[in-house]
């Protein structure tokens, strides 16, 4: 069968859609192998058709259906259409709106949690703006007071540790007898042993006192200032 460029154009769709008879398809392929122009047309148009078939449909404006309904069936039909839950869901249930609604809901939950609103203890009076503001104010003050208490407790603990860790004052008699060792002279072995055992004892006392203090602080009735020396207690 003789094939030419005019036939390529005339039967292009049949070729691309596989509607040519085997003999015609063979003749078209033979001609395309010899004719660069026809080969390019077949290749390029085939690619283009494939790309156009893969294109997604365009998204119509969100309110076009409502506008058409209003224009054809009137406002009554539109109300009827939107009266059902499905109508509203179709309007709202779009990715951009759903994501926005979820973000707003999450924001409200965080704000409500921060303001101290609990769903389990929610009452109608709790929705009163005055009550909501008062509760938020209370929560803010409570948070500040807890923080302040924590810092004060921490400070007291460190002060007590500092007091306990301070070296005990040496007796005045011994102070006179203990002459300063000559510079560079190593301390004697009994002195070193006595000092290290004293330090170990002091560390053990410090650890025990700190541990006891931690447990004591868990008691709501604990008075942390009672541990301080009398002259350092607040008035």
């Amino acid at each position, binding site marked *: 069968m003789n094939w030419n460029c005019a036939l390529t*154009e*005339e039967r*292009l*769709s*049949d070729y691309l859609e596989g509607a040519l008879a085997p003999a015609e398809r063979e003749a078209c392929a033979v001609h395309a192998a010899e004719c660069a122009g026809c080969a390019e*047309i077949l*290749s*390029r*148009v085939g*690619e*283009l*058709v494939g*790309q*156009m*078939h*893969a*294109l*997604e*449909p*365009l*998204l*119509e*404006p969100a309110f*076009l*259906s409502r*506008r*058409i*309904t209003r*224009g*054809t*069936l009137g406002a009554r039909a539109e109300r009827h259409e939107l009266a059902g839950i499905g109508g509203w869901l*179709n309007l709202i249930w779009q990715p951009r709106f759903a994501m926005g609604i979820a973000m707003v809901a999450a924001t409200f939950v965080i704000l409500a949690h921060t303001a101290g609103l609990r769903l389990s203890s929610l009452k109608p009076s709790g929705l009163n703006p005055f009550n909501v503001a008062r509760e938020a104010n209370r929560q803010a003050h409570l948070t500040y007071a807890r923080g302040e208490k924590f810092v004060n407790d921490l400070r007291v603990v460190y002060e007590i540790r500092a007091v306990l860790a301070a070296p005990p004052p040496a007796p005045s008699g011994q102070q006179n007898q203990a002459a300063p060792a000559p510079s560079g002279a190593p301390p004697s072995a009994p002195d070193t042993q006595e000092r290290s055992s004293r330090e170990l004892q002091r560390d053990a006392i410090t650890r025990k006192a700190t541990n006891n203090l931690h447990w004591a602080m868990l008691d709501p009735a604990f008075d942390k200032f009672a541990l301080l020396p009398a002259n350092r207690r607040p008035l």
Partner: protein
Amino acid sequence: MRRHTRRVYNLCYRFTGNAASAEDLSQEVFLRVYRTIGSYEPNYGSFATWLTSVTRNLLVDHYRRTRCDRLTDSIDDAPQAAEVHSADRTPHQKAEAMELSAQVQAGLAKLSPELREAVILRDLQGMEYAEIRKVLQVPEGTVKSRINRGRIELARILQEMGVRAD
């Protein structure tokens, strides 16, 4: 009605290349359908084919009516329509599809109305030749000829625009 809105809107937008005009024309199509629904006969074919025929007639009217306006308008100034994207596409694929869609739209705008409507109905609306014959009211041979010439012309235009086939 909602089922057909997207189909009509797509046809209008692909033909006019303007989102606002496509919206107005879609509404006009349904108004006309509402008024002339009594003239629809099942012998003509499916309702979708009849609806496409009504849309095409309105588009032809619109084309004739706005011929003077188009001489001064630029397609770049026209509002663009958004695309529906499958959820399984990556952002890169979506961006490529949007770019290709805009390029095809620009190429379609340079085709003659006869070739443009044939290519749109076949390749973008996915209609069969027999349905297109009913809509365009021309023999099937003419339909195929227009589609062939339209595809070749569109491929040439896109090549001149520098669009490369993947």
